[in-house]
């Protein structure tokens, strides 16, 4: 009995953390704080060379319908066009005088990478197509355009985001990178008239116009005819 108790005591002591720490004395004490600049290593610093860039001034144009009739289809258009009036040379206006900054030689990204523009529309509650991402190659001097067709099935306000990414695929086969170029918030309101959507309003309006014309213009036309006929005999009498 005493031997069993002594055995159990020895097992308990051997499993305790204290015993573990004692077995590896070099791990005792708090762990050191590691930083990016370790002792003796050179600190990280930004490269002074300019990053390769697309040497074009572009304009991002987003067109979307602020109001849409319920049930009608509309178009959202996003395009990345060349800005003909844009200046690649950085300029500054100081006290009304134009100051030209010396242009910096920036490596042309088109020479080292294949660039793909990717766009996506995120808007909840609205039917739209195409869903997911649309990709189009970005070529020098050429615009890219993305189109979505939307159709609201219910009245209300819909808020969404139009994303535009650029994917840089190196021509030497190394890993590609992707960055967000723009994220534009949009708001679309779906409306109706007297509870009717676009198609129903047009159909009912057309039918009602014909019916109303038949009911009312019939009387109006006969009244006009009587007026014209009534004047003619009087005119004849006046000439005599």
């Amino acid at each position, binding site marked *: 009995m005493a031997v069993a108790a002594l055995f159990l005591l020895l097992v308990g002591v051997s499993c305790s953390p204290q015993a573990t720490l004692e077995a590896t004395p070099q791990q005792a004490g708090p*762990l050191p*704080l*590691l*930083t*990016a600049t370790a002792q003796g290593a050179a600190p*990280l610093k*930004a*490269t002074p060379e300019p*990053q*390769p*860039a*697309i*040497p*074009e*001034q*572009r*304009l*991002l*144009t*987003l*067109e*979307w*319908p*602020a*109001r849409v*009739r319920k049930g009608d289809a*509309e178009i959202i258009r996003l395009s990345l066009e060349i*800005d003909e009036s*844009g200046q*690649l040379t950085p300029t500054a206006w100081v006290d009304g005088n134009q100051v030209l900054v010396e242009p910096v030689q*920036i490596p042309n*990204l088109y020479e080292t*990478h294949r660039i793909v523009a990717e766009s996506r529309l995120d808007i909840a509650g609205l039917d739209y197509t195409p869903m997911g991402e649309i990709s189009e190659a970005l070529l020098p001097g050429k615009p890219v355009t993305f189109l979505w067709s939307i159709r609201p099935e219910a009245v209300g306000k819909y808020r969404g985001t139009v994303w535009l990414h650029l994917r*840089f695929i190196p021509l030497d086969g190394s890993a590609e*990178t992707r*960055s967000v*170029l*723009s994220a*534009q918030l*949009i708001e679309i309101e779906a409306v109706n*008239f007297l509870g*009717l959507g676009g*198609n129903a*309003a*047009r159909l*009912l*309006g*057309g*039918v*009602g*116009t014909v*019916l*109303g*014309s*038949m*009911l*009312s213009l*019939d*009387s*109006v036309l006969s009244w006009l005819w009587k007026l014209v006929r009534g004047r003619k005999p009087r005119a004849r009498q006046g000439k005599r």
Partner: protein
Amino acid sequence: MNRRKLRLVIGIVILFISLALLVWGLWPMAPEVRIVPVSPTEMQLPLPGSFLLGWSGVI
């Protein structure tokens, strides 16, 4: 005469409401346009280590 007048009034009312529906249904909805200039500096390669500058971690 009353019947004729009633028919005329009803016809005119239907005509006006229908024309209003037709105009609303066919009126073009003006789109919103937003133009944002994009400079070459915004179309640069993202720096691979830019998010690591000044990072400190505890292990």
